[in-house]
């Protein structure tokens, strides 16, 4: 049924449809709506689940780890500082091979306190062994959350569904909320490969010597390597049932493009508009939507971008001392590609600052007029006067 829903509600509806059994969460702006709606579902019986209102995000993920180890389908949601506070347990969840799904509403980290969009929270968790899927709009959020359970349970790794603060979490748009029946067909009940069981006692996550630790880590890596293939199969099934297609990355007008944007989240929509405008002006612009960030779909990028001239990466994040994180990853991915393109990195829209189609067009022109890219990312839209005033 088509509804007008905000991104947060799209997450909650997916959790309901996925028949999640245990949810634990702690309030943090702007994630809060997600868990408020889920609380309501649990309270009014729409969802047969236990909602544990814990005293911190650290405990939220710990409780979910306990529940998932006991063989039930689980969910939590967070943002920025909450995700940073979970850091220890992000590693624990993947090391314990638990198919947990979590929504992270991308939000800036303080100081200064800032509740708006910034991708550095999730991207700085890239080495924790979580699959990361980024969403463009409300429909994408709902559908990705459903697919996330299939994906997580197929490889026994946790999945982070990432959505932009406010531009997505608090923005109302039409979302097709599917009926339960097709969802049940797509996502059958969770069949755990292992669970705490008094009838078959085992010790989970115990002390392990160097003789076996490395093999356990290698298994996580091989499971990650399995993800793109599994995702493709799951997305195909999803499309057959629901008629919507989600590739791990999407190429838009890339075939003849001279400059291709690469970005993730709602900025993808902005880029779509900018690409159309640029095309109408005779410019050969294209776009690559990055949906899956972990594992990084190296083969896809090599295939689409080899032989292209220029790529402009729009990062709403920064790895200080290096560059925008998407740009950094892309450079590494294309290093061994045949005739790799030039990669231009741009940092824009941190802490909720607007990135408009005009911003994207400006980036296009900067890229077009440059002979070769800088090593570092170029910061877009900085107020130089403010920057200078802080220097004195």
């Amino acid at each position, binding site marked *: 049924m088509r509804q007008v829903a905000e991104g947060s509600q799209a997450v909650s509806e997916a959790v309901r449809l996925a028949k999640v059994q245990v949810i634990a969460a702690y309030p943090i702006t702007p994630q809060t709506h997600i868990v408020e709606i889920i609380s309501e579902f649990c309270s009014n019986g729409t969802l047969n689940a236990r909602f544990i209102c814990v005293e911190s995000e650290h405990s939220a993920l710990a409780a979910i780890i306990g529940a998932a180890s006991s063989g039930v389908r689980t969910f939590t949601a967070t943002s920025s500082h909450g995700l940073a506070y979970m850091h220890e347990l992000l590693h624990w969840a993947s090391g314990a091979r638990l198919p947990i799904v979590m929504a992270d509403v991308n939000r800036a980290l303080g100081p200064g306190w800032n509740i708006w969009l910034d991708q550095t929270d999730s991207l700085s968790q890239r080495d924790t062994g979580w699959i990361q899927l980024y969403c463009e709009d409300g429909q994408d959020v709902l559908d990705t959350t459903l697919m996330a359970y299939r994906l997580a349970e197929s490889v026994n790794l946790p999945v982070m569904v990432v959505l932009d603060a406010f531009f997505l979490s608090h923005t109302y748009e039409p979302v097709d909320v599917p009926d339960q029946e097709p969802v049940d067909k797509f996502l059958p009940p969770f069949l755990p490969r292992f669970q705490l069981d*008094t009838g078959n006692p085992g010790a989970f996550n115990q002390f392990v010597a160097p003789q076996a630790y490395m093999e356990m880590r290698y298994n996580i890596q091989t499971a990650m390597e399995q993800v793109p293939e599994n995702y493709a199969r799951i997305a195909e099934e999803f499309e057959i049932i629901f008629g919507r297609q989600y590739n791990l990355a999407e190429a838009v007008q890339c075939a003849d493009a001279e400059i291709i944007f690469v970005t993730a989240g709602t900025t993808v929509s902005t880029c779509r508009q900018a690409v159309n405008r640029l095309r109408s002006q005779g410019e050969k612009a294209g776009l690559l939507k990055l949906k899956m960030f972990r594992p990084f779909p190296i083969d896809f990028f090599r295939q689409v971008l080899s032989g292209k001239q220029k790529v402009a990466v729009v990062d709403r994040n920064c790895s200080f001392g290096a560059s925008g994180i998407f740009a950094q990853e892309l450079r590494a991915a294309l290093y061994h590609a045949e005739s790799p393109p030039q990669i231009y990195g741009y940092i824009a829209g941190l802490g909720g600052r607007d990135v408009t189609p005009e911003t994207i067009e400006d980036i296009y022109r900067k890229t077009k007029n440059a002979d070769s890219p800088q090593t570092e990312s170029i910061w877009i839209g900085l107020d130089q006067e403010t920057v200078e005033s802080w220097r004195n």
Partner: protein
Amino acid sequence: MAQLNVTDRDYFKPGHLGCPGCGAAIAIKFALKALGEKIIMVIPASCASIIVGPYPQSALNIPILHTAFATAGAAASGVRAALDLKGDTETMVLSWAGDGGTFDIGFQSLSGAVERNEDCIFVCYDNEAYMNTGVQRSSSTPYGMRTTTTPGQDWKKTRKKNIMEIMAAHRIPYAATASIAFPEDMIAKFQKAKAKKGGARFIHIFASCATGWGAPSEMSVKIARLAVQANIFPLYEIENGTRYTLNYKGNRPVEDYLKTQGRFKHLSKADVAQIQKMVTEDWDGMCRKTEAAPTG
């Protein structure tokens, strides 16, 4: 054990990694005798996480969830929620943390869990410092103890945190202290905790650590007995946070206890007198609470 109405069966197997005289190992043995095997045990980082066995071995015949240091209360809550959702209300969840995982880094998640009145038994086996990492002070370390982070003349000058009073302040259905030197009392308390199903139960076990306390391993149980006899670690129960029951009245001087352990050997006569004063104060307070509590 037949005359105590306690099973002869041991759920804790030989071959575990406890040191000789390990109080924590004795505590696990008796707790499981009382609780049986329909348990899922949650163990945060601690001596216990080593004692019960490294991969691929286990000294326990029950499922164990090892979890991160700060998380026993939360992880146990998650296990409980999952069991309930699966319709399994019979299996108990037993959280088994040391003093670090209870008094310090695990304090917040424990407080959260007991405030929610989670249907779990939360145990602190207390050896009064971080023994697994080489005897560093915790907030359970008593006044007067020398540790590797309170060395020399900087021996600990603050009191041990009163975790039982904190649990009582959460008004949980049942909280009790127990000692490895009083197995019948400990087993009875675990049986009582088991029977009080439906809410949070907390058991604070005095579990001596011969290795960390500077005592011969054969003295472990004797030291624990002296702690009770000197009223340093009274045996008592608190129901619903208000109703106190004292299980044992000691009358020995603290010196009898302190002199058995290297960790206190630096203390002067005046220091010992100071500790005696503190213990007497605490004991008097405990007796007042016991008398003030409603009866019947």
